[in-house]
């Protein structure tokens, strides 16, 4: 593999021990994937920052790297963690303290402690064709598919190493030939609202594994950015999807031919009502219709989504024995506070969280049993990860469940 003088200098320890370890990691990954060289990146996004992933040893590693002088050299954001630094949600002290130390460790290395899965909603917007090294599978899908940036499914350590060195191995979705579609889906049913997009994403992700799906017929529904975020998050959690094309919607798919890059030999699958229902079915494992926990906003909600929830809750109050978390980040929450949406949500007895999400935190210690969510990603992970029974459906159904304590179809 070819290394330039800058890269060799880092590998020899010329930028300190932290950068040397990071470069060793980048070179090892390049070798594993047979990359011929390393390419400069414009930004990085570190994930796997939850205490669930790091453990106490991981926490010490982060602090050790910070002490060894590792510093990021490109704008590097931090993913969702397991606590909300702005408030006490009742989580145990031995969870909160080490989690905060992990965050401080990354911040000491120059990362932005904005702790969210959607940095593209505030200040960090990769542009078309730009090489980046973002972890967080939902963000990988979004940046590749909707923005046309070039990103592989980075893991926590590899995105960190890319941020510290400023380089990533040149393989996978950084190369034109790997961005072509692999399987076609003809959408023949109506797709309405974010929950439909999530259910569709789940079905497709489960079916295609790591192939790039090409969606034909989605353009007539004119999906919103948020709907594409949720569809991508569903694909990435149910499968290994790192990119999709939607013909007439995403920038590298003006036509079916362009999406497949000239390949004509591909399978076509019809996606109709039956398949959509299957997606919903995959995401639902509720037993009791008595809901004690409602959590929405995975990926974190945009300002528009937060306002919609505020309007649905305006002047109402959620049921006494139900807890409702609405997930977003510090940027969107600050705007929601200024604009009065936060007040409406809090007056209704719900919590607008920042920094965290159900999957990467430990709300199970608070004693909840049955979760209602509009998130296809939370619905996928929460049964195994948090031990919850899950009802999956639209925002309207989730808000209704919070107000009444009952899930209704």
């Amino acid at each position, binding site marked *: 593999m070819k290394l330039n003088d800058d890269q060799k200098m880092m590998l020899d320890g010329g930028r300190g021990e932290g950068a040397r*370890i990071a470069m*060793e*990691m980048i070179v*090892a*990954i390049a*070798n*594993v994937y047979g990359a011929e060289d390393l390419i400069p990146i414009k930004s990085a996004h570190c994930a*796997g920052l939850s205490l*669930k*992933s*790091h*453990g*106490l*040893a*991981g926490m*010490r*590693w982060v602090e050790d790297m910070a002490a060894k002088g590792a510093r990021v050299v490109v704008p590097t954001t931090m993913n969702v963690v397991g606590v909300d630094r702005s408030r006490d949600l009742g989580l145990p002290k031995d969870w909160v303290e080490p989690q905060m130390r992990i965050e401080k460790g990354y911040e000491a290395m120059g990362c932005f402690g904005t702790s969210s899965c959607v940095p593209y909603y505030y200040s960090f917007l990769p542009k078309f064709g730009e090489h980046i090294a973002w*972890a967080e599978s939902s963000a990988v899908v979004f940046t590749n598919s909707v923005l046309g940036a070039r990103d592989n499914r980075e*893991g*926590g*350590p*590899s995105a960190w*190493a890319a941020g510290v060195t400023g380089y990533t191995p040149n393989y996978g979705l950084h190369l034109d030939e790997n961005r072509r579609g692999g399987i076609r889906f003809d959408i023949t049913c109506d797709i309405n609202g974010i929950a439909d997009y999530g259910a569709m994403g789940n079905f497709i992700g489960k079916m295609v594994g790591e192939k790039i799906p090409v969606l034909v017929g989605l353009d007539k529904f004119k999906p919103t950015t948020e709907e594409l975020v949720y569809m991508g998050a569903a694909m990435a959690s149910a499968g290994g999807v790192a990119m999709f094309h939607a013909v007439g919607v995403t920038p590298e798919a003006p036509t079916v031919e362009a999406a497949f890059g000239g390949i004509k030999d591909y399978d076509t699958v019809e996606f109709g009502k039956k398949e959509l229902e299957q997606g919903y079915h995959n995401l639902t494992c509720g037993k009791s219709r008595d809901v004690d926990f409602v959590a929405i906003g995975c990926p974190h909600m945009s300002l528009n989504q937060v306002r919609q929830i505020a309007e649905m809750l305006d002047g109402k109050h959620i049921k006494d024995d139900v807890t409702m978390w609405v997930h977003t980040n510090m940027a969107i929450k600050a705007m929601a506070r200024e604009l009065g949406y936060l007040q409406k949500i809090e007056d209704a007895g719900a919590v607008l969280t920042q920094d965290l999400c159900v999957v990467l935190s430990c709300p199970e210690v608070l004693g909840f049993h049955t979760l209602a969510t509009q998130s296809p990603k939370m619905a996928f992970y929460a049964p195994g990860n948090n031990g919850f029974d899950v009802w999956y459906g639209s925002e309207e159904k989730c808000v209704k469940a919070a107000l009444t304590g009952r899930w209704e179809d």
Partner: protein
Amino acid sequence: MSKTVNCRVVSKGVAEGEALVCSKPIGFNFGVDIPTGKIIEHGHELEGISIKDKVLIFPYGKGSTGGSYVVYQVAVEGTGPAAIINLNTEVIIACGAIMGGIPVVDHMEENPYDIIENGDWVKVDAVNGTVTITKKGEN
């Protein structure tokens, strides 16, 4: 009589120990118990067996990328393998081993499953890219 075979270096370092051969991939996240180094994946061929201080031979890693931190954690706790030999190392193992300083090699010029058995004494030189095997009972 020992035998030395060339290989590719993934994570630098030199270590030796008793061989523990595993024919199946290993997922470290939720698959290895950090305080003991025992494999805890239900139904795994090494379930209940500790990887501590062994030269661990397995084809490649599997599971979530959080596995890197577990590889690192067992290295720090002293319950991890002395060294790792893979057929093809993937990113989870590579990153975790570099973080924890565990020597890792792959792409041996001879198939490790043909020439290494449980209990052989194996030295992994992940600086010069060699694996030296002394058969059980000969050391």
